[in-house]
């Protein structure tokens, strides 16, 4: 079990860590690390390496953005940051590890929208209340995507078709209970239409399913379907964000089309609940300057990750309101199960 009380974060030891993006190879071994950690409760914060727990597998979007932040945050925070992947249970293993970490500010969690859904889904007990917000750095709206040759080419026509043929439109998603499933289901609720949701094992098979014609539509993040939209047979009817995407400026948002509904995946940074406010403030300041750096902004744009920022206070409130909102949606969907 990945809880921090099982593998206690070592307070004396200081794990060395290979730094620098774009550097390769281990050239040589040199001197000592110096700077014994000592008792970090006193004096300057931060004075030792910061661990960033990623609840998702290495190589995924959360891991990728987290590692980028870890690299860039060394400068403003003045210490090394390293990412550990503690995965499994739809993120619950990692969220629990964050929640149970020591509240000294040296463990930061890369936190995703699932913190607001998994307890409603009966997967785990961990909720936003177990965490303290630092900043939000990303939001990727859902994109409702259909084949170009479908009998509907606008969202209005899609909704009209679904009203005439309830349950006939099958919408693929990256997994049952995953954010893209909830987004499609939440929109169907809002629009008063009936869709059939089909869960796949990840975003790539879900996209393939709509290309191959096994299903009629897919709900995913825009970058996941971009390859098939830009030059391929798919088109996006609407994005579920507040603003249009830079990548697809011609695609309208749901709000423009008259549906007061936004949903998508977001990522942020958190610490265990009960961490000292002053230390959260230091972290918030450091990570905010990372967020504002040109390097981070251009990295996110290249990867197609949406840039949305909330400070500690706003992010905390946002998580709470998302938590309540997902509770309602999952309730109505009948997805909630007891363990």
């Amino acid at each position: 079990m990945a809880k921090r009380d099982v593998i206690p974060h070592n307070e004396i030891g200081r794990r060395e860590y290979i730094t620098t993006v774009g550097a390769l190879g281990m050239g040589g071994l040199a001197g000592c690390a110096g700077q014994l950690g000592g008792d970090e409760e006193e004096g300057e914060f931060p004075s030792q390496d910061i661990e960033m727990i990623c609840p998702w597998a290495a190589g995924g979007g959360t891991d990728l953005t987290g590692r980028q932040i870890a690299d860039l945050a060394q400068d403003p925070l003045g210490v090394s940051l390293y990412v550990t992947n503690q995965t499994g249970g739809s993120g619950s293993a990692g969220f629990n590890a964050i929640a149970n970490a020591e509240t000294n500010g040296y463990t930061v969690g890369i936190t995703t929208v699932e913190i607001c859904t998994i307890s409603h889904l009966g997967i785990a007990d961990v909720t936003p209340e177990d965490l303290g917000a630092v900043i939000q750095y990303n939001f990727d709206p859902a994109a409702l995507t259909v084949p170009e040759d479908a009998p509907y080419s606008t969202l209005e026509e899609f909704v009209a078709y679904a009203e005439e043929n309830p349950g006939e439109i099958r919408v693929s998603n990256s997994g049952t209970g995953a954010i893209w499933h909830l987004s499609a289901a939440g929109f169907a609720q809002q629009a008063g239409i009936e869709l059939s949701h089909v869960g796949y094992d990840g975003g790539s098979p879900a996209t393939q399913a709509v290309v191959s014609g096994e299903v009629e539509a897919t709900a995913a993040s825009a970058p996941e379907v971009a390859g098939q939209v830009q030059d391929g047979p798919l088109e996006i009817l609407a994005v579920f964000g507040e603003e249009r995407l830079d990548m697809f400026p011609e695609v309208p948002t749901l709000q423009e089309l008259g549906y007061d509904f936004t949903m998508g995946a977001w990522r942020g940074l958190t610490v265990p609940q009960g961490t000292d406010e002053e230390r959260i403030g230091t972290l918030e300041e450091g990570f905010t300057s990372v967020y504002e750096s040109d390097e981070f902004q251009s990295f996110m744009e290249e990867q197609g990750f949406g840039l949305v920022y909330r400070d500690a206070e706003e992010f905390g409130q946002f998580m709470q309101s998302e938590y309540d909102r997902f509770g309602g949606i999952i309730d109505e969907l009948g997805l909630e199960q007891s363990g």
Partner: protein
Amino acid sequence: MPSVIDFFAQGATLVFEPLALALIVVGVVIGLTMGSLPGMTATMTVAVLVSFTFGMEPVQGMMLLLGIYGGALYAGSIPAILIRTPGTPSAAATVFDGFPLAEQGKAGRAIGIATVASFVGGVISVVFLAVLAPQIATVALAFRSPENFAIAVFGLTIIASISGDSIIKGLISGLLGMFLATVGLDPNLGVPRFSFGVEVLTAGIEFIAVMIGLFGIAEGLARYRAGIDTDSVEQDLSTVRPTLGDLKNISNVTFGSGVVGAFIGAIPGAGGDIASFVTYNEAKRWCSNAVPEFGEGNVLGVAAAESGNNASTGGALIPTLTLGIPGDSVTAILIGALLVHGIRPGPGLFESEPGLVYAIFIGFFLVYVVILILGLVGARYWARLIDFPSMYLWPVIFLLCIVGSIALRGNLLDAWVMLGAGVLGYFMRMDDYPLAPMVLGLILGPIAESNLRRSLQVSGGSLEVIYTSPIAMTILLFSAISLFLPVIRRRIRQYRM
């Protein structure tokens, strides 16, 4: 209008410069090292090192990552042959004949064959990638849930042929693996099954941890049972480089497995593990009269498995580059590495970045050339590893099994699962239950279940969706043949005797 030759020239100028070539070698060496450690998969190695490539030119970064990818997939075979523990899941089928060869003192020969087969399989897949990518991508895209279900069933029928003497015990082992894989979240409904309210169990049982335990720890316990201080088999190192006879012998199987492996790799969601099981089974069926029998140290088995799993690498790149849909988890990370440079794989890639695409073809070919050279040079030394006295070797292997399973996802529970699987595996071995079917069940059970249930959900509960698919029915027909053929053949043999 520039021709294909121009594109190749363009790609070649990008690859044939000192840094890119050096990165290929560095990548292969990293891949070899990591892939040969149980628990360190190709995916994990590529994922952790991908950020190093962000500061490089796109082609240079791809050379490093492709080197790791090919190197790690090949190197999984080394511990599979030497200590009966596959370094990566893709090498699980290599154990069947690779380890018996090592027991006969022919570890060097087995590694040599594995190296040549990996090279051939890899090169075949690169050729497919370069020549037939768009066509193969179209066919692979026709694989919907019913077809994927059929592929998984096809894989599961292999249990019959790898079960040795007792088919009943083999089936029980495979079914137990499939059952273990149902622990955790239901694939279609997202509800926990058999987790008994224990939160960590909702994450499911990590099959790589089970695999490491089943093979590594169980083998170690069997050694300790026999007495660890007994001498190890002396390895014959005179035949590390495959002989002309060996090469002639394996050529058909290696080529066939390469083609099949490349195709399976091209199906999104099917990777090297399934590819090697399928090609192993097919080879066994093609060469039913092979001496020695498959499973008792036939080089054909090693060649088929290794050619198949390495061919899946180029195969996986096909949908990745042509459609922007990753063929496996490593290629998903490669897409991310390209995105950093503003390059988006998809149908337009061949027009917008022909130089890069052809550089990838050429570079991936060179990766396999480097693997061939390093593999053949290194085989002699790796084979010596098991000449290491057992009393030093096995404690280190046990430690690697533990640390490797913790490394999977930073979870101590996986180390306990690994150890538990090891003890279970030991008892099963002692009672003549084959262990490979269990791994097969763990890998393929969830694929079979989720695709069958998804097929039925999409069709509204009608099995028509399966029997009206010509592809699915063809594969299921092959499954039936491969399930009953070993039984029928055994009957005939018994009858003759």
